[in-house]
């Protein structure tokens, strides 16, 4: 028995003694240019260019955080960016590191736009229609107040456009501070860090039974003093696929077990999205409901 106990002690000690891990050589992946674009209706198009980084340059698991120096290294500041539409090509100017802005009037909706980027000898391009703006036909918040909670649900109706469409609906909340005497302030509402995204819903019109779609979305954890902003955008199919995949695979619970995934892009020879949508925005002060 004595020997058994000694052996148990010895074994448990050795259980904790793990041999030196084996190194694995992973081929380095050349940085790719990542495109993000945004449209301000009838005014501007902005394009932000960044680079991908090796998985061994940055690891959140190992405590790395995004610093300004990392961000500066990621931004692509020497690119030639232009947009071609209706047979003409217009250049975008770089207004800050990696941030490019149009100086020309944007064409009418449903015009085909081609984004051209040249940097470090690489050529990227992407083509997308300037998508028409979609609006809610009707949207009504309803609030159920209990002693402990305030349950907000949103009933909305969309009048679907012809042909295939994909829609993105975002819900934002903001505290009392964004309210002033004249109501909600759009500029302060969308300042990064002050607004809170409560929920994002993407929906394909393939599930619509007719041209008109009625939906209801519940928004938990909204206090009755909050203001609420709901935006709807008509997005392209690639971006819809991307967001759908992000919704299903970025869940905390599934991070461990999900199948590896390479997300889609609509950029040829690059990553990211040439997005040409713009939202319709609805504001609600929930105190009024």
């Amino acid at each position, binding site marked *: 028995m004595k020997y*058994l106990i000694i*052996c*148990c*002690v010895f*074994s*448990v000690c*050795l*259980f904790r*003694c*793990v*041999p*030196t*891990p*084996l*190194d*694995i*050589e*992973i*081929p*380095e992946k050349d*940085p*790719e240019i*990542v495109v*993000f674009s945004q449209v301000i209706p009838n005014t501007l198009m902005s394009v932000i260019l*960044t680079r*991908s*980084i*090796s*998985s*061994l*340059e940055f*690891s959140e698991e*190992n405590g790395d955080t*995004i610093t300004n120096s990392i961000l500066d290294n*990621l931004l692509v500041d020497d690119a030639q960016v232009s947009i071609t539409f209706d047979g003409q090509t217009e250049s975008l100017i770089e207004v800050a590191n990696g941030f490019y802005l149009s100086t020309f009037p944007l064409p009418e909706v449903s015009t085909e736009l081609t984004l051209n980027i040249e940097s470090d000898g690489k050529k990227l391009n992407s083509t997308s229609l300037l998508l028409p703006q979609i609006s809610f036909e009707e949207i009504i918040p309803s609030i159920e107040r209990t002693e402990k909670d305030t349950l907000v649900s949103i009933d909305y109706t969309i009048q679907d456009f012809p042909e295939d469409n994909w829609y*993105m609906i*975002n819900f*934002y909340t903001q505290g009392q501070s964004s309210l002033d005497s004249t109501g909600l302030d759009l500029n302060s509402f969308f300042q*990064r860090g002050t*607004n809170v*995204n409560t929920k*994002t819903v993407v929906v394909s019109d393939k599930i619509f039974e007719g041209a008109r779609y009625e939906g209801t979305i519940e928004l*938990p*954890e909204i206090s009755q003093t909050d203001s609420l902003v709901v935006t709807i955008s008509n997005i392209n199919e690639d971006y819809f696929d991307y967001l759908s*995949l*992000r919704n*299903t*695979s970025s*869940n905390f*619970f*599934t991070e*461990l*077990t*999900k*199948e*590896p*995934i*390479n997300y889609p892009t609509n950029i040829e020879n690059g*990553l*990211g999205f040439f997005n040409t949508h713009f939202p319709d925005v609805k504001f609600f002060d929930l105190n009024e409901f």
Partner: protein
Amino acid sequence: MRTLQLIILLCFSTHLFAQKITISGYLTDGFNGEALIYGNVFLKNTTIGTSSNEYGYYSIDIPADQDVVLIYSYLGYQNVEKSLSASTDEQINVSLTSGTDLVEVEVKANKITIEQEEVRSTQMSTVNIPVEQIKTIPTVGGELDIIKVVQLMPGVTKGGEGTSGMFVRGGDADQNLVLLDEATVYNISHLFGFFSVFNPDAIKDLNLIKGAFPAQYGGRLSSVLDIRMKEGNKKKFEVSGGLGILSSRITLEGPLKKDKASFLISGRRTYIDKVFKAFGSFMPYYFYDFNAKLNYTLSEKDRIFVSAYFGDDVLSLDESDVDGEDIEVEDEEGELGNFGFGFQLGNFTQTVRWNHIYNPKLFSNLSLIHTAFNYDINGEVANNSVIIKSAIEDIGLKLDFTNYQSDTKLYKFGLHVINHQFRPNILSFDGDVAAFLENRPGDKRNTLESAAYGNAEYTFQEDLKLNLGFRLSSAIVRDQVYWGFEPRFGSAYILNNNQSFKASYSRMYQYMHLVSSSTVALPTDLWYPVSENVKPQSSDQIAVGYEQYLPKEKLKISVEAYHKWMRNLIEYKEGSNLIFNDNFENLLLQGKGRAWGAELLVRKSTGRLNGWVAYSLNWSKRFFDELNEGEPFFSKYDRRHVLSVVGNYDINKRLTFSAVWEYLSGSRFTPLLAQYIFPDASLTNVEFIPIYSRRNEIQLSPSHRLDVNFIFKNKRTKKFQSEIHLGCYNTYHRTQPYRVSVTLDPDTGDLKYQQRGLFGVIPSLAWNFKF
């Protein structure tokens, strides 16, 4: 028409040229009355012979009214010769006495050994492993794990360190049919794969079939592992057991009615939780299992067997388990809640079998089978609770007949019907977590799987044997019926008693699959049936081989090459969430697979030095339109080279040394190569988006390991036998890859990819006894 008549005549004619009688009976172990499976019965000075079946039954034709000698033999047992001159059919039950621990039985002239009979048989791609022959093999914790032994055979590769997953001839983990006394075992491992559920003290024999599948087997594409429990000592009451570092076990067996009825009860429990706790560590986990068997000889013609297995894995963690202090978790409103997590995995099989001998040439077995597997996971954090349940339950009937038509014709036919009831992923959430996870009732699904089969084995002119079979299988699921016609073919061209060439072809259908993540092995992997949208998997496999037995060296050499085509294999869409989901059909993709390779097995089953060398060279590819941009990719466990060397050496009568050396090429994985930042949909934050390599593009480093074991036996007395196993797992402390991680190099400050192992060198001590 004449050809048809000739075939019918060939098939069903008996005793056309000579008057013959049939000698039949059971071949048993003289010490305990256990049936001897696949023992040899031969007519002296001829090559006419037969083998005992899974119940020890044999039937052989001999010339009537002539003096003949029948030789009965079994590996490690003394031969028995019976001289007889009979004019009518007779039943002769023969008991063999074991030699001294795999003693080398002298090869006498005019006697076909078991190895030679294997060479002469049409069966190929098959390995039979009597448990008594592998009890000395070193293992973690000093307790024999039969699945780990199977993983040392050619054509079988394993997953990560310590896991019980088997990947046979380029197949997937769910393509192996594991039978315990004919009941399907759905979960073959305890402790996340580190122990198999099979208690070695309760197991008699196992048969691994990787190709050339006999027609009575079906339902999986890649392998059948047919495991038989002991029947229980019919001669005397016996107690055996063992004390190990991680678990202990005890087995009671004995006659209920001498030579008529016997029982076996075997139990095992790990105390890994207690061991860890005693040394200040924490492991809120244990498992136990229980085997029982009863058998009763009703008459010379009827025998009944009742066997059962029950096992549980239990993990239970609550606030009192950590440092003896309560854990209370603050929720967002600052309120305190409790913490708890647990899971329970349960395996349960029951089989009732009735052997009946209609006449000396017709043997039948009727099996009634019940199998259940379920898991239950529950978690509680603050005001949130999660409950996940899943279950599968089978009720089935198998009716098998063996017709020993003549020395040159053996027919097998039968009918199998099994109803599977699936309850995949019953999900229940409460609290805040319920806002983004949906409760699901776990849709109940029934699948009725049935098969009829026939198999005929012919011997032509003593040098050519053919095995022709078919299996007509079907699965009825809701409004859909699937049929599968599964032809089977095996052949042996016998050069002489020691050499043969073999070839085989098998088609297999599989009507269920395992929902499991490719990234991490979880106990929550669950079985899911075919449906209207999910088609059955199927395969075609061809194999050719050469077998040679070297009588002087007592070595059997087997070389085989195979090619397997697989259809409707299962993979999951990229980014799929498999845990909190019961609608797997939307996540499934079906594609093709192809595997090919070669295997070598050199095996010496007797002698002071015995063991085997197994080598396999494998390729395994997958073809899915929706994955890897439609390009073919290697399967995850596409290990190019797998080599294992297993040796046992009896240093003297009381001391045995055993060693296993294993080499495996690395498995494959899909690493994260790069990442980029991108705004989220609301433009309120940025996210890191991963960029992975092509699917399974990177091959991990190879691994190799040496395990050793010394067995000290006490002086054998009639009353008490004991042995001490002193072993060492991973003797030279080499990393056995378990997972891949990104770590910081302390020297350079750079991040790098590393393969980590779970354990280094692990000594083991176990004491086994029998009285």
